[in-house]
C-alpha cells in the first residue's frame, strides 16, 4: 500500500486554513512495525486453552515482546524533538504531566488504557509531525493559521490534536483546549437565559467544568495576565481593570450562573492580549463541526436552539476565526457524537457543510474543496 501523503491545502484567498488528513497509514515497513506491536500486546493474550502449545508460545512471545518493545518505543519524550526517524514509535508522557496538560481532552478509551497500564504512550505519526513542523515555524506577526485535522473514524484525529497540545504545553504556550464541542450542543439539562444578552442561552455546568479544567492546565498564566476592562457581574459584584485573570475564573467557578460569561471574558481577553506577545495562545477544539451543525437542545416553548444562540458556542466561534495573531488554531472534525450527520461522512464538506462567505466585519469561512480519495 502506498504511503498516504498528508494533504495540504493553501490557496490564495484563504491563506489561513490548512487541512491535515490523517489516515490509516501503511507501508511494508510500518506494517511490520505494527505487527510487532500486535505481538508485543500478544504477551498478555490468553494461550491457556491448548496446553501443549501454551509454554512454547508464551516463551516465543516473551522474547519477541522484549525485542518489539525496544523497536516500537523511543526515549525521546519531548515532542519538540520528534523527527522523521521517530515515526511509528511510541513516546510516553509522564503521568504528572498528564494531569496538568490533559485534565480533559483524551479520548475515553485511551484514558481507560492509561489508567490500566499506568502509562500514556502516543505514537508519533506523519500528520502530527507535519502539524508540529508548521507550529514550530509559525510567524507570530501573521494572523493565526487554522489547521483542520480530518479523516475517517478511528484514524487518530483526537490523538494528533493531543500530540500538538502536548508540544505547545512543553513550549509554554497558553492552551485553550475544548475537548469535545459535541458535548456543548446536546444533553444539556440546565439551559439558562443569558443575563448579558437576552437572545442567548447559558450552560452553567458545562462552562464551570471547562473553567475548572482550564485553570488546572494554565495555572501559571492566570496570575500574569491582567484584564484590560472593567466587567460588572451584577449589582453587587464587579471586576476592576488590572486584576489578574485568575479572579475571573474564580468568579466563574464560585458563581455557577456567571460561568458562561466568565468563559466569554476569558476568551475575549486572551484573544486581545495574545497579540501583545507576552504569551502564545493555542486554541485546540475537537469536533469543531458541532459549532456549525444543529443542536438537540430545546427552549421552553419546545423550539430548537440554534448553535449561535448558545453563549459558549458563540464565544468559541469567535476564537476560531483567524482575526488575531500570536498563536495558532488547531481544530479537528469528528463524526462520532455528531448530530444529524451520516456515519460515512468524514470530509470537511460533509461535516461542516457548504459555508458561504458572509459579508460583514466578521466572516468565518472554511476552505471546502474535494480531496481526491485514495
Amino acid at each position, binding site marked *: 500500500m502506498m504511503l498516504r501523503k498528508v494533504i495540504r491545502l493553501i490557496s490564495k484567498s484563504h491563506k489561513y486554513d490548512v487541512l491535515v488528513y490523517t489516515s490509516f497509514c501503511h507501508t511494508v515497513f510500518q506494517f511490520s512495525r505494527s505487527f510487532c506491536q500486535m505481538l508485543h500486546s500478544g504477551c*498478555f*493474550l*490468553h*494461550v491457556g*486453552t*491448548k496446553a501443549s*502449545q501454551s509454554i512454547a508460545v508464551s516463551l516465543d512471545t516473551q522474547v519477541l515482546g522484549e525485542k518489539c518493545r525496544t523497536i516500537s518505543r523511543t526515549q525521546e519524550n519531548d515532542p519538540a524533538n520528534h523527527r522523521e526517524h521517530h515515526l511509528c514509535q511510541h513516546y510516553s508522557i509522564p503521568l504528572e504531566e498528564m494531569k496538568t496538560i490533559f485534565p480533559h481532552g483524551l479520548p475515553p478509551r485511551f484514558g481507560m488504557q492509561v*489508567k*490500566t*497500564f499506568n502509562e500514556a504512550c502516543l505514537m508519533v505519526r506523519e500528520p502530527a509531525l507535519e502539524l508540529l513542523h508548521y507550529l514550530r515555524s509559525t510567524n507570530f506577526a501573521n494572523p493565526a493559521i487554522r489547521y483542520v485535522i480530518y479523516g475517517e473514524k478511528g484514524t487518530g484525529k483526537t490523538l494528533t490534536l493531543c500530540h500538538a497540545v502536548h508540544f505547545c504545553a512543553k513550549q509554554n504556550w497558553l492552551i485553550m483546549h475544548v475537548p469535545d464541542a459535541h458535548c456543548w450542543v446536546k444533553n444539556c439539562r440546565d439551559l439558562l437565559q443569558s443575563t448579558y444578552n437576552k437572545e442567548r442561552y447559558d450552560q452553567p455546568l458545562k462552562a464551570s467544568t471547562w473553567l475548572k479544567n482550564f485553570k488546572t492546565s494554565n495555572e501559571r498564566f492566570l496570575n500574569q495576565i491582567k484584564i484590560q476592562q472593567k466587567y460588572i457581574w451584577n449589582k453587587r459584584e464587579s471586576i476592576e481593570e488590572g486584576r489578574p485573570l485568575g479572579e475571573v475564573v474564580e468568579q466563574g467557578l464560585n458563581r455557577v450562573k456567571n460561568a458562561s460569561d466568565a468563559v466569554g471574558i476569558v476568551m475575549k481577553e486572551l484573544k486581545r492580549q495574545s497579540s501583545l506577545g507576552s504569551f502564545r495562545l493555542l486554541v485546540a477544539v475537537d469536533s469543531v463541526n458541532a459549532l456549525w451543525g444543529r443542536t438537540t437542545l430545546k427552549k421552553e416553548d419546545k423550539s430548537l436552539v440554534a448553535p449561535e444562540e448558545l453563549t459558549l458556542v458563540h464565544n468559541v466561534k469567535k476564537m476560531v476565526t483567524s482575526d488575531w495573531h500570536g498563536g495558532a488554531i488547531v481544530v479537528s472534525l469528528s463524526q462520532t457524537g455528531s448530530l444529524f450527520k451520516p456515519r460515512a461522512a468524514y470530509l470537511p464538506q460533509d461535516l461542516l457543510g457548504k459555508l458561504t462567505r458572509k459579508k460583514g466585519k466578521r466572516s468565518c469561512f472554511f476552505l471546502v474543496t474535494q480531496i481526491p480519495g485514495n
Partner: protein
Amino acid sequence: MKDRESSQSRSGKPAGSPSRLGRVLEPAKMAAPVVGSARCLCLLGPGVRRTLRALPGLTQVRWSRYDANYKEPQLDKDYYLKPLEELTEEEKFERDLRTTQIFKAPPASKTSSLFEDPVISKFTNMMMKGGNKILARSLMIETLETLKRKQFKKYHEAKAEERETIECNPYTIFHQALQNCQPILGLVSILKGGRFYQVPAPLTDRRRQFLAMKWMIQECREKKPRRMLMPEKLSHELLEAFHNQGPVVKRKHDLHKMAEANRAFAHYRWW
C-alpha cells in the same frame, strides 16, 4: 420395499456399533420421542430405517439429515500436527480410515482456533437471548476485559510481596470461579407413596457445570442494579466466586445444606 432392502444391505454396519437403541438415538444426539407412524419411516436414512424395522410401532420424530455413517469432525489441531513417526499402528490405521469416511459439517461456533474455549462458548450461548449471539459474545468479551482491568488496578496498587498472589488472567479467573460454583450433590424429586421427596443424588459433570453457569447468569440478571451494565456485574460476581465468596457460592452451600438435611431420604434413590 425390495429396493430399500437391497440398499440397506449394501451399506454395511459400521464397526463396533452400540446397541440397537443406541443406533436409534445416535443420529438425533438426544432421546428423541419416537412415534408409531408408518409414513415417517420413508423419510429416514437407511441405517435408522433398518433399526426401526426391528422395533415395530416406533418412528423417530426429531431427526437429523446425517445418517449413522457420518462421523464427528476432528477439530483438534494437535491431532494433525503429530508427526507421522510418533503414531502408533492404531492411530495410523485410524488416519487411513478417516480418508474414506464421510464427516458431518462442524457448527459455525466451533473453530480450531487457539483462543477457543468450550466453557466460554457454552456460557456465551447460555447468556444469549433471542439468538443474538453478537450481543452475547460482545458482553462476554467486555466481561473478560473488565476482569483484566480490575485485576491490573489491584496489581498496580499492591505491594511487591502481594503482587504474585494476584491473578491477572481473566480466563483462569473465569474457570476457577465456575469451578467454585459447581455443586457436588443435587436434589432430585422422587415420587414415593403419593408424595414428592427431595432426595440428594450425585450429579453428572455436565449437570454441575450447567447449574454453576445457570446460577451465575440468573444472579447477574436478577440482582443487577438498573443502570449497571452486565459486564460490570458479571465481572464482580466472577471475582467474588473466584475468592469463594458471593451469592452464587452461597447458593451452592445452601443446596449442600439442603442435601445434608434430607440425607434420610437417600435410600429412595434406586440408581
